[in-house]
């Protein structure tokens, strides 16, 4: 365990950015967003960034390759450039856990090399959630925001930031900044954890459970009449999927350049009517079906295929950004066993 005064954080970021590209959440008008550290940037107090850190590993748009046409000849060009190590700082535990979900998808064979390369070079520095929001419900999925994981865990207490490396990657980072860190014991951190756990007990969604969901529940849930009412006001906009740290659907598209084609991928959303459109049409024709797909995937299909792991981490972003305030919590309460 190491520590550094909060007031010395700029020095820490400066030091880190000598070796790494450092990204940290900074405040903007009405929220927080990840930004590449530049001198003067201040770490945001807000826990949830609007876009989740999955963007660093699975960017919203990502060029994959190029085709160059000359006359009637086509060349395929790999446009990937060697990736440098980078740090994503201040990741909440729910977001850290989201990478478990994403890894299951992208790193299982055949591995997605674009994602894998970024994961190999990315260092996650997490932070404990001292001040969770009313929309937080990570506990529902057994995530402990007081005990963050990642390559390095951090806690903020009493004007001091405590750091604990968890992995080799984390140790390597610590070695870069060891000059400005001092050794520390666990006492303050333990106190902070206790404090956090007390707050968690006061959260409005603390009793939300996954009961009634999970592997094997398809038949039970699929035709429930509640879907109609829940989905009726859904606009199908896709905001929830774009702010979600675990949504991993993408579309591969071609962009015609002046003398060739760029093949790129970009996030897609199961909420879109065009989602997975094939020559025979779309598999899910109504918004109800598309709506159901998203929540069934989070709560039933994904756990079924991934050893019971839910593909929701309870970060609460969708609760904050849905234009019509429909969200997974309302779905779970309407359909779940013990809820309500």
């Amino acid at each position: 365990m190491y520590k550094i005064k909060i007031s010395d954080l700029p020095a820490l970021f400066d030091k880190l950015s000598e070796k790494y590209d450092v990204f940290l959440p900074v405040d903007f008008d009405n929220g927080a967003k990840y930004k590449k550290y530049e001198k003067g940037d201040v770490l945001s107090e807000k826990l949830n960034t609007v876009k989740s850190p999955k963007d660093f590993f699975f960017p919203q748009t990502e060029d994959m390759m190029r085709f160059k046409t000359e006359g009637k000849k086509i060349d395929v060009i790999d446009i990937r450039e060697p990736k440098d190590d980078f740090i994503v700082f201040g990741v909440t535990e729910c977001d850290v856990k989201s990478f478990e979900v994403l890894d299951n998808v992208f790193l299982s064979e055949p591995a997605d090399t674009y994602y894998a390369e970024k994961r190999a070079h990315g260092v996650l520095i997490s932070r404990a959630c001292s001040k969770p929001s009313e929309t937080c419900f990570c506990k529902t999925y057994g995530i402990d925001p007081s005990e963050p994981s990642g390559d390095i865990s951090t806690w903020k207490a009493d004007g001091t930031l405590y750091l604990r490396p968890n992995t080799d990657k984390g140790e390597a980072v610590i070695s870069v900044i060891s000059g400005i860190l001092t050794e520390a014991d666990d006492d303050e951190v333990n106190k902070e954890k206790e404090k956090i756990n007390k707050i968690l007990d006061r959260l409005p969604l603390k009793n939300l459970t996954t009961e009634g969901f999970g592997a094997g529940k398809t038949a039970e849930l699929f035709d429930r009449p509640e879907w109609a009412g829940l989905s009726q006001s859904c606009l199908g906009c896709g905001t929830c999927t774009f702010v979600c740290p675990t949504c991993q659907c993408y579309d591969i598209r071609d962009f015609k350049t002046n003398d060739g084609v760029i093949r790129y991928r970009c996030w897609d959303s199961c909420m879109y009517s065009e989602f997975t459109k094939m020559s025979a049409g779309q598999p899910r024709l109504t918004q109800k079906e598309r709506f159901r797909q998203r929540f069934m995937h989070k709560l039933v299909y994904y756990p079924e295929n991934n050893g019971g792991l839910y593909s929701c981490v309870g970060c609460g972003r969708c609760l904050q950004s849905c234009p019509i305030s429909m969200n997974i919590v309302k779905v779970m309460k309407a359909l779940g066993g013990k809820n309500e």
Partner: protein
Amino acid sequence: MQKISRFDIINRLKDLLADGNVDRVLGWKKGEFRYDVTPHVFTSAQELEADFVWGDFCGANFSKYLIKETAKSDKKVAVLLKPCDTYSFNQLLTEHRFDREKVYAVGVACDGMADIFKIKKITGDGISDIKENGEDLDVYTIYDEKPVKIKKTDVLSERCLSCKSKKHAAYDELLGGDGDVLDSNRFDEVAKIEAMTEEERYAFWQGELSRCIRCNACRDVCPACTCEKCVFDNPNSGMENKSPANEFEEKLFHIIRAFHVAGRCTDCGECSRVCPQRIPLHLLNRKFIKDINAFYGEYQAGEVVGSRAPLVDFDKEDVEPKNAVGKEDK
């Protein structure tokens, strides 16, 4: 105009259901917290009693839902409309988007909606309850026993701060009476941007639009965006895309979107309300409205059903583009 209570609205809606005038009601449904209100179709008095809310977070504009809702059944649907919503309602009628005969429009008086982002800016996260207390809102958080007292006028939504009208442009009946068309200051922000230098304007919008994640919330909530198939979803349009690959596409999307609703946008402000990135999208639409007013005379979309939108109209003496651009005030 008088303040109308949830109780009064429910009573009236129950009567409407009971009379058989309508078989369902499009209204606001309470959420997990005070502020996460969802549009909902209520079908019974019990449902209304249990879940209907009316308060400072009932911002959603139901007009667009009427397209889908009226197509569902031959029975009438009752819809609650705030004054600003009625303009969208009329505009959709102008564009033949739903059957007026299938709608029973209940106008509700509105004194402005609160913006949860503004509240959170003051209180921080962890809101457990928000209670109306006269002109104030008492905001309770999980971090403090005592509420934070906030003047409602301090956290009013941007669009309500520059409300253009408290008068309903359409209704079958009114609850809480009617107000007046207001002399709003809604173009001040636009004028401020116009007064910037070209470089400043570029930098301003570059900063705003670069946050866009193309979640389509603005488009999908917009009561003017009712295309059966949006050009941005249509592979044949040449501009279909699912995400903004770069700065150009960020701009393209918002220019085209604003242009497509130019002359049809009623300035209801839903786009800015729902933007998760807090991009002031209404400033794009308002720019068109301001220009239309300056170039072609005052026009309020949705004020009158059947009015001809400025872009499908002309005057032989219209201003030339070269004399118009950059001279909006002259």
